[in-house]
Each structure stands twice: as C-alpha cells, then as structure tokens.
C-alpha cells in the first residue's frame, strides 16, 4: 500500500533524500551493504556459524547432552587425544569427558538462541513501551518510566534468582530473565531519542494531517528513532550472550548437562590457573568470533539503515 502523497513527503523529509526510483529498496539495501568487504565477510562467517549451530547433530562426533555417551575416564583430555569412543577429541574434553568440539557446536545453538531471542524480545518490548511513553507523555509516560526505574534498580542476579524460584531452571527462563533485565535499556533510550524527534517539524506536520496515532508512532516516529536502537540491539545480542555466561558463572544459567558457550567458559574458568586452558579457551574463541561477526554485520546494517549517513 502506498502512502498518500503528503505523508510520503513528510516521511522523506524526516528520513532521507528518496532513493532513486528505478531501484527496489531491497536491491538498494543489498548494494549498500555490499560496499564493505569486511561486512560481507563477516556475514558469510555468521551464516556459517548459524549453519554449524543448526546442523550440530550431524557435524558433532558426540551428542554432548546425552549422559550415556560421556565417559568420565576421558575427562580433561588435552586436544588431539584419542578417546575411548573411537574418535579424536580435536579440542580436548572437559571434566565430564565431554568432547569440546561437540560441546561448542551444541553450545553455540543455545547461546545464539538465548542471545538473539532475548535481545530481540527485549528490543520489541522496550521499544514499544519507550515510544508509547514519549509519544503519549503524561500518565502513560510516568507509569512506564517509573517501571523502567524499578526495573533498572533490580540487580539482574536477583531477578534471575526470583524467576528461577518461580519457574525453575531452563533456557526459556534464562531468556525471560534477560528480557526482564534488558528491556528497560531500550525503553529509556528510545524515549530519550523520541522526545527530541517528537518536536521535529515532520511530526507536527503529520499531526496536522490528522493521521492516526499508531500511524504516526510507527511509520514516522519509529524509523527516525531506529539508528541508536540498532546500535544497542547488536550490542545487546552480545551482551545477552555474555550475561547468560555470567549467570552460568554464578550458577543460575542453563542446565549443567546442556551447557551453552557461556557455561562451557564458566566451567573451564576453574581450570584456567592449572594450565588446562582448552576447557575455557576454545569456547571463548567461539563466543568471541560469533559476537565479533554479529557486531560487524550490525555496524554495517546501521550505516546502511541510517538515513543521515547517506551522502
């Protein structure tokens, strides 16, 4: 559905000089994105990582979550050792005899699920509430912002402990805990930006046209608030993964028999001083690479999506 001409004019005033008419937005987007070779490379690596995670059961030599396949006598083997089960532990094993390579592949799944899932849900919840607060002001604003205050004042550990007490342990509950901790950041940021944007001419113009409120909020206000949010989103994916690792470190994360990358790192942490670096090091590298490529892609996305950076 094409917007009415007046609205389109407002939108482009607030957004960007309109793209040349011959290109579809998607094509334009892809071309812009491909401008950076690094970003394309990162995207390829990211896709590979996601594929590894998705097809982990077919790639991994061992199902690290099946306790019957773990042999404690194979515990803490250095990389390259031949195990009792007849295959080589190319990245060594942890204290339970879990093949680190398999563990990393499976752990990647959980970390990506937790990281992307919680960051995305928090993004949606936080942005929606922040926009509402900024646009409607008054009581809505007060209510939402006090809720944000309340939320930001609770240490995540306490939130996680309480959620654990009510719901029990599990991946979903970790996601809920992280969303509960992170949404307020989006809300606070989007409100700050939106308060500024709200007073810009194009919103006033849109109001003069008597457009519906949801339309103004989502078609006009939101796109202009997006750039800082995308910065936060890409960072929050990383932060959510790291937060999950910290929760695991404090004993509150995912189940011990189904370790995420964070839990693998936290488990190996105790072995760092004793020279058995591989238990913590390789999952650390995997985590690092994942987060770096997410951010490289995110950076380029932000530049492409940010109308004000277009020359």
């Amino acid at each position, binding site marked *: 559905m094409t917007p009415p001409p007046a609205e389109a004019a407002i939108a482009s005033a607030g957004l960007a000089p309109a793209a040349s008419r011959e290109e579809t937005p998607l094509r334009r987007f892809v071309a812009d994105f491909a401008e950076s070779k690094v970003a394309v490379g990162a995207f390829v690596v990211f896709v590979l990582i996601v594929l590894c995670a998705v097809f982990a059961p077919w790639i991994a030599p061992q199902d690290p979550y099946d306790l019957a396949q*773990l042999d404690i006598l194979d*515990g803490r083997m250095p990389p390259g050792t031949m195990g009792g089960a007849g295959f080589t532990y190319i990245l060594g094993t942890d204290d339970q005899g879990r093949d680190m390579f398999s563990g990393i592949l499976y752990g990647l799944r959980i970390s990506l699920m937790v990281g992307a899932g919680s960051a995305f849900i928090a993004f949606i919840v936080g942005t929606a509430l922040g926009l509402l607060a900024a646009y409607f002001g008054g009581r809505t604003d007060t209510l939402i912002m006090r809720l944000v205050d309340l939320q930001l004042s609770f240490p995540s550990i306490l939130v996680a402990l309480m959620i*654990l007490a009510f719901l029990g342990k599990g991946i979903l509950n970790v996601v809920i805990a992280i969303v509960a901790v992170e949404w307020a950041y989006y809300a606070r940021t989007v409100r700050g930006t939106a308060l500024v944007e709200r007073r810009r001419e194009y919103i006033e113009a849109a109001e003069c046209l008597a457009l519906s409120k949801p339309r103004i909020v989502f078609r006009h206000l939101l796109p202009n608030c997006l750039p800082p949010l995308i910065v936060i989103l890409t960072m929050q994916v990383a932060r959510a993964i790291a937060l999950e690792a910290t929760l695991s470190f404090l*004993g509150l994360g995912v189940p011990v028999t189904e370790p995420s990358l964070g839990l693998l790192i936290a488990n190996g942490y105790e072995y760092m001083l*004793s020279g058995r670096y591989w238990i913590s090091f390789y999952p650390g590298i995997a985590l690092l690479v994942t987060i770096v490529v997410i951010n490289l892609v995110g950076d380029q996305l932000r530049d492409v999506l940010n109308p004000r950076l277009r020359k």
Partner: protein
Amino acid sequence: MMTAGLRSLLLAAACSCAMAGAAAAQNLTIAVGAPVTSIDPHYHNLSPNNAMAAHIFDGLADTDSRARLVPGLAESWRTIDDTTWEFRLRRGVTFHNGSDFTAEDVAFTISRAPNVPNSPSGFGIFTRPIAEVQVVDPHTVRIRTRAVYPLLAVDLSNVMILDKETHENATTEDFNSGKVAVGTGPYRFVRFAPGDRIELERNDTYWGGRQPWQRVNYRIIVNEAARTAALLAGDVDLIDQVPTADIARLKQDQRLNVSEVVGLRIIYLALDHSRTDGSPFVSGPNGEALDRNPLKDVRVRRALSIAIDRNAIVSRVMEGAAIPAGQFLPEGTYSHVPGLNPPAFDPDGARRLLAEAGYPNGLRLAIHGPNDRYVNDARIIQAIGSFWTRIGVRTQVEAMPWTTFIARAGRQEFSAFLVGWGSSTGEASSPLRSLVATFNREKGFGASNRGRYSNPELDRLLEQALATVDDEKREKLLQDATRVAMEDVAIIPIHIQKNVWAMKRGLRHDARADELTRAMDVRPGG
C-alpha cells in the same frame, strides 16, 4: 629518561619487596574461602565463625587436628556419676583485658550461649542437655546433665568461654566493634571488616605459649580462582579450600607447599523414602507414572549404589582430593566400622538387581544437587547421572544454588539428591542421629533426614548408644547402627573429602580434619 623512570620504578619495587620480606617473618596473611559473619562466639554456630573464635577465645576442651578431644581451659574432667561431670579449671589464666578466668565465668558462659538475641543458629544445642552448673570453688565446676549424656565434653568444646564481668550485657555488635572482643585465646582482636578481613595481634601472655606471628591478617576471598591467584601473586601466605583443579599445579610449584588430610565430611545421595506410591522424579522407562516408589526397594537402592564408580569420581572429578566412602567416617576415627568398604563398581550387577526388582527396562529419574555448596558438587551429580544412565536409569541432572535447593530438599520435593555432612566431632552418632534416625522432634532425631528414612532397629541401637557412657561399648553400638544403615542403603555414600591448604614454602601447616583454618596451626619452617 625512559630508562631512568623505569629504573626508579624497579628500585621502588625492589624496596617494597625487601620490606615485605622483613615484615613477613612476623606477619601472617591467611585467605579463607568462607566468610566470618560475627566475632560474638555465641551468635552464629558456623564453621568459619568457630575457626575465628578459636583465635580469640578458648573452650573448656579443645580438639586436635585429628578431631580428638584435648584439654583447653579445663585441665581435666571426669564423671562422678552417670549424670554429673567435674571439670578442673586451669589456674592463672587471664582474659585480654586482665580479668581473671574463674568458675563463675563457666557458669555465665553456659547461661549466655543459648540466649543470644536474633541468633540464626544458636549454641543451645550444646547446652540443652545441661540441668545445672554448680561452682564448687573458683577452679572447679560440676555440671549435671538431664539424662546420661556421654558427649558433654565434646559438645562443650564448641562453646567459647566468656568473662562474666566483661560480657554480662554485651551485645553481638559490641563484639564486632571490638568493644568487648576479649577472650583468653592466643590472639587479640584488632579489627573486623565484615566480608573483608579480621586483623589479630599476638597475645603475649597466652597460657598455651607464645605464637610465632606478631600480627595475623585473616582475609576473606570467596572466589576460588582469586584465592589461588592471591597466593601465586604472593599477596597472601596461606589459602584454604584449594580448588581441586589447582592442587596438582600448586604441588609442583617450587615456591609453595600443600598440606592435606582426610576430612570428616561425607558427600552422599539421599533418597526419597517417605512416599510409597510413586516418587515425584521417578518414572517408568518411557516416562509413565509408577504406582509404587522404586526407591523403597532395597534392591533398587543397591543397584543405584553399585552403578557408581566411586574411584572414577575420586580420581577424575575430585582429582584425588577425596577417598571413596562406604560409611560415614574415614578410617582412624572413633566408631569407624572396620571392613565396611565402599561398594564395588558393578554395572552388570546393578542391571541384574534392577531386573530382579521388576524394572528390566530400567527407569527414569532426576537427580538434584547444589552447585555452590560442596567441592565440585554439580560435577559429581553429572558424573552420577552418566553412570546411572548407562545401567538403564535415564537420569536428568539438575543443579541449582543452595538457596533454592535446600528449601526444596527440606520440603521433600526431590527423589534423589546430593548433600554433604560434616561430623565435626568425628563420631558416628552425629550423622546417625541427624541423617538416618527416624524424624522425631521430641528426641531431636532425623533433623536433616530429608529423605525420611526410618528403621526401628537402627533407632534402637542409636538410642542405646547415646545412653552408654562406656566408650568401648558405645563404639560397638554405633558401629552396629552404621552397619544396619549401610546394608539397607539408607543413603548412598559417595566419598569423604580431603581438606587441602596451600602456602608459601617456608611455612608448615598442621592440616585439620574438621576443616577449620587457624593461624595456630601455621608455623615457620618446613
């Protein structure tokens, strides 16, 4: 310029090192893993607090590193009849503020210990058997118990003696601030920073002889890796609760010494004995509900026990810092049962037993445990889960913080769960009474019997033992009771922990079975 700056920096570093070296001869810095919560010796009955109290205060009796009773402020004691004990007190002992130690102080202490306001874990459990304290003369006290109570002297070794004049109306806060933190012990109190450190100074007039350390800095570093790092960096002289992962490396390090001893803490699995028709986390091989609780069948319990390779857990998970257990106490302690060995690892036998009990296709089960309480707790239950899964008992492993774990365990929500028990007195009556005796409020039995095991024969033997003054006869009865519990697989013992300390070379440490970390056990030389 760059080099000049660097040189002066190096020089400064060298100076500070030299100074630290000179000071080190007199000072001792200890880093412990468990926080001391109070200086008041009667406020919170907690191992770290009791370890700290032993520096500043003394009890009538004390225990040595092997948990054997030795004289303290009482030189000797004897029983006059079945219920009357006479303690002869040491003469010429003074408190740090100069006040004399007399029999009145003992009577005062016994009246104060159970009555500290707001105490979350009081010392009343040690004084409750006492009916009357009689001051015979300034250096003789007679204590009458309500019933025959052979453990009186052992119990009283936990109660630190305070001064009647100084501590008559003293509050816990007065102790923590240092106002009344005076005892008869080898060290004087200097400063208490909760959650951070306690500073002590030598008591030059200690009745037991002068200590080698002028000042003791007792630091609390809860994080295990940080504690080890602090020792490696040379910031502390001695650490306790050495992480099992680091023991091998620290032993190899030329600059360090490691001391260890088999402790008194058993790690075991408790099982749900309370329900007859099904247990919450046990189901059939395909997840179907069962109409009876398989854990009530001794064959199932035995199968679960022999399915565990205890040697593998000790060598792999604990890295040697434990010994496999088949009963509550290690060899060499009072009431250890000779010949009652750890169950042998026998997965085929376990499968047979399961089939005999009517579960040829196995079971499903969930095992619960804490992840922040005992050494490697979450790793142990994972390993057990793996052993059980291999005999056809598909096991789901759930580790959680002690906070939530213990509340749920106390409500009997679990079917099989990992817990530990430290018999600080080094005697089987403690675990028998708390862990496997039938839950009974009046008798004070089974207070930690969270699986609600009950066996009348065991109860009878235990009650008989607790009323027997003769040490040899009592030991026999306790051994019989232990045997009954183990043969019936009331609990599944896994291992007994070793207590491990690490220190700078040049220090000698007498490792204690009761896990307490005290400056008195550290000497220069060695």
